[in-house]
């Protein structure tokens, strides 16, 4: 206000360029800023490519798109690419789901799990993506509501993983989970 010029807030800028085109005197130029990072590492015989947004940047789907572009360039090196999406149903999830062959929804038999499962299956339906379902912690409560949701959305339940303290502890030690259900999921691919 004081200087009667607009102030740019870099963290909120999505790089759409609308201001640059709208400005009649070309006062705005385009630059690049770091919005996140892509990491690559190897372990257990797999390559891990990880995208991470810089805290404070709002538009996380831009990072997802950058990671997917990075993968696309290396696609021929792999037989199978597994993408781990964010939670929820908003832009980073949609960006991650775009163009995949199959989406595996993971849920648990609680009212919250069921509620959110319904949303993600509907989203995949909208995006015309084939969906499969894994029920995690399948033994903590009645699975019927989940099975109904799966049926209503024409989704096949491909595996069920029980709750067990050993799995919890392995996970909390940062170790991959060994269970026959995991093999079932892999076989389904």
């Amino acid at each position: 206000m004081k200087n009667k010029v607009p102030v740019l807030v870099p963290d909120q800028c999505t790089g759409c360029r609308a201001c640059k085109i709208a400005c009649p005197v070309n006062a705005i130029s385009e630059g690049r800023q770091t919005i996140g990072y892509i990491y690559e590492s190897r372990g257990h015989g797999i390559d891990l490519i990880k995208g991470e947004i810089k805290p404070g940047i709002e538009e996380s789907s831009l990072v997802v798109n950058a990671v997917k572009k990075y993968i696309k360039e290396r696609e021929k090196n792999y037989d199978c690419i597994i993408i781990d999406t964010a939670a929820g149903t908003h832009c980073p999830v949609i960006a991650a789901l775009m163009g995949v062959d199959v989406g595996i929804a993971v849920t648990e038999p609680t009212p919250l799990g069921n509620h959110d499962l319904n949303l993600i299956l509907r989203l995949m339906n909208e995006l015309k993506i084939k969906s499969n379902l894994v029920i995690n912690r399948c033994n903590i409560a009645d699975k019927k509501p989940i099975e109904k949701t799966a049926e209503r959305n024409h989704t096949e339940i491909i595996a069920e993983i029980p709750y067990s303290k050993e799995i919890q502890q392995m996970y909390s030690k940062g170790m991959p989970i060994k269970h026959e259900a995991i093999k079932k999921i892999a076989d389904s691919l």
Partner: protein
Amino acid sequence: MKKITVLSGKGGVGKSSVTASLAVLLSREKKIVAVDCDVDASNLSLILGIEKMEKETQISTNYKSFLDEKKCVSCKKCLDICAFSAIEWDEEKNIPKVNKFLCEGCGTCQLICPNSAFSLKKVKNAVMSEAKTEYGFPIISGQLKMGESGSGKIVDLIKEEAEKTNAEIMLIDSAAGIGCPVIASVRESDYIVAVTEPTPSALSDMKRALQIVEHFSIPYSIIINRWDLNKEFTKKIEEFAQRNNIPVIGKIGYDKKFIEALVNLKPVVVYEKNYEKLFSSILDKIPLD
């Protein structure tokens, strides 16, 4: 109105369960409003026993671009300029096609088009709803519609609505992650409670979420949920907290009662009265005045 936000970074660590129990206890002392800012998958109301929300309002915080095919001169300028890959080219008709799932509604295509073939239209991208819980306090929640975007702006809107209730305390349940809905939840909060669990991913995600909190210079503290699943790692979290002068205001043990409470659509302090003591002691450490 004092605003307290509960966040976690990682999903599934028990953030909403903790929020619900804190809400019930807090409402016995103060006039509160609970706000579910997890607009992607809102389910605080479920834990508070509400299966159907009342007073639903369609809200619109987003625009999308629409093409008037007759006006298009096939120059492809829009295709090159779109930063969100939301414009695809229809080779058959030789015109652009807007992918409604990717369009951010920024209007750049409209600005660059030499023949004004694009127009921006407001889309109803979310539903805001309200209900009164059986515990006497209201809850306001927002739910993003399928395939829509703009969750940050929806959070702003439902917080504005909650502001009108004249409650003494607004208790906000944030989304997982650190993206726009979380930033919008944290913004203008007076105090933050971060819920985590003893897993490497939960700690790392919480640390990232706390960077947002630090950015806004808001005081905060940590609750460690299911702390006894990995006592060694819990110690690591406590050491991290101590090094950074962050108070750990509560440690909740793993208990199947939490799942039973969830399945019965009850906050754990209601389902199992023994938990009142633990949650009251947590509440005592949150500055309310």
